[in-house]
């Protein structure tokens, strides 16, 4: 994890396509796709709306190896319809998770890049996300960790934001965003004073990887580099034991979320949260590199 990454050899995860991410994050040559494009049909729901579909419906599923361990893989394509979940897209994810319950790979790697429900298939998408939510929890209950990687251009929003937080852990880059409603939606409904979606620095201070890392909503913060995501995933999974669902675990999470809610009550900007966490100069956070931020978090008062 701490090996320095040569910036000139960096392969941006944010800008990569889902297929390139799959190739770069998993062991070279290990990926086998289920329902490859040549065996698939684009969504008929898009066709009736006169919109060209994609053969894979914006998500790739298959098997691979990660650090020599067998894994099942899901990778959403943010460049197609914002990575949004429609009927086929959602069913591919559900199918992969159900396969994981039976096959018991070392892990499921879920590369999220999605705005949530595909509005053109709104009901099918919402129901599919509910099915994905239950399937993620079933997979984890079967002892298989589900690891979310969040660092794509569409982030993890809407139902896929919920799904990401149902996973065993999240590996995230600073460029990744993780939230429920997108800033544009909040701005449209509640006004630009509530959330200026064009203020990119603000959007990242509210939904970005550094904020999520400092408040414990993602397990690992990595550089925007496919190799860093790969190493982050390997590190999180090393020695990971999926805990059985229990009231004690969820009570601990309930206490954490409740006390956090009280501690940061009324705050509207990451800068306020970071000051409350004891960061000496919160304005430095957005310009800090990943390693410095990780070191800073380790030094914060408990």
């Amino acid at each position, binding site marked *: 994890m701490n090996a320095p990454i040569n910036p000139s050899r960096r392969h941006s995860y944010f800008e990569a396509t889902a297929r390139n991410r799959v190739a770069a994050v998993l062991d070279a040559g290990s990926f086998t796709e*289920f*329902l490859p494009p040549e065996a698939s049909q684009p969504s008929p*729901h898009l066709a*009736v*709306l006169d919109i060209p579909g994609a053969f894979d419906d914006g998500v790739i599923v298959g098997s691979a190896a990660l650090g020599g361990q067998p894994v099942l893989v899901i990778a959403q394509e943010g460049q197609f319809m914002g990575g949004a979940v429609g*009927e*086929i897209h*959602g*069913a591919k994810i*559900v*199918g*992969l998770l*159900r*396969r994981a319950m*039976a096959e018991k790979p070392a892990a499921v790697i879920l590369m999220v890049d999605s705005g949530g*429900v595909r*509005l*053109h*298939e*709104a*009901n*099918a*998408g*919402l*129901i599919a*996300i*509910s099915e994905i*939510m*239950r*399937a993620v*929890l079933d997979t984890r209950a079967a002892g298989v960790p589900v690891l979310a990687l969040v660092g794509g251009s569409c982030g993890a929003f*809407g*139902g896929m934001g*919920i799904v*990401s*937080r*149902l996973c065993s852990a999240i590996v995230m880059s600073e460029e990744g965003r*993780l*939230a*429920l*409603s997108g*800033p544009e*939606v*909040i701005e449209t409904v*509640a006004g630009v004073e509530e959330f200026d979606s064009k203020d990119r620095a603000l959007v990242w201070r*509210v939904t970005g990887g550094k904020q999520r890392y400092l*408040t414990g909503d993602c397990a690992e913060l990595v550089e925007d580099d496919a190799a860093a995501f790969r190493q982050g995933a390997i590190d999180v999974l090393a020695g990971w034991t999926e805990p059985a*669902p*229990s*009231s004690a675990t*969820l*009570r601990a*999470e*309930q206490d954490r*979320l*409740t006390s956090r809610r009280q501690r*940061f009550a009324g*705050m*509207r900007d990451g800068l306020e*949260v970071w000051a409350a966490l004891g960061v000496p100069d919160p304005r430095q956070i957005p310009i800090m590199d990943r390693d410095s931020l990780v070191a800073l978090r380790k030094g914060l008062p408990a």
Partner: protein
Amino acid sequence: MTLHDILDALFPAGHAVEVSDQLVAGTAQTATGTVAVLGTTGPAAIGHDIALGLAGRILDIVDRHPGRPIVFLVDTKGQALSRAEELLCLNGSLAHLARCVDLARRQGHVSLALVTGEAVSGGFLSFGLMADKTYALADAQVRVMDLKAMARVTKIAHERLVELAGSSPTFAPGAENYQRMGAIEAIWPAPSASLLEAALANQAAAGPATDGRMASGRARDGRRLAADVVAAVLAA
């Protein structure tokens, strides 16, 4: 119909349910014993406080009343829309609530959700759609987005969406569409103790609930693709 009217109709043998800041919580009597009642009214926008309030009460039920059935009453206009809510990862609190509903199922609590008013997006996902089975009253409004807003966002003519909505349950609002697609088990003409008790008894008899919504959606000819796609992924 007010929440009180609905509770009276569902639980003629008595209920002790309180509403505080749109969060509904309490107990009620049925022919087979005491059930927990949890949910929202308003319709409520689900933020951290409601999500954590519901989640905490579910954990209390799991810890103190093993096996007690849970009836969720759903009336939500979706997630709370604010920067402060998102700053603290609102999706995380909704995920936590969903995990609590899921835990109750794993610990042997039968659960059922009844949409009494609105059921929208994230608010619906976090608990209504997590129950073993979801039902809706006839005048319930279930949606992701209304068609006018959908037309604006997708840049597809409103008239075209209205026309297509007549032949496809895939995108247009309406409890019937969700029923055809398998997510809503049945639509009740009115809140009814006998329908509720029958639904709870069916589930108790069926044993631990698995997610049968995709199969229902296919059997009802509302979701024709998903089940085959899942089967193909399993067989690949």
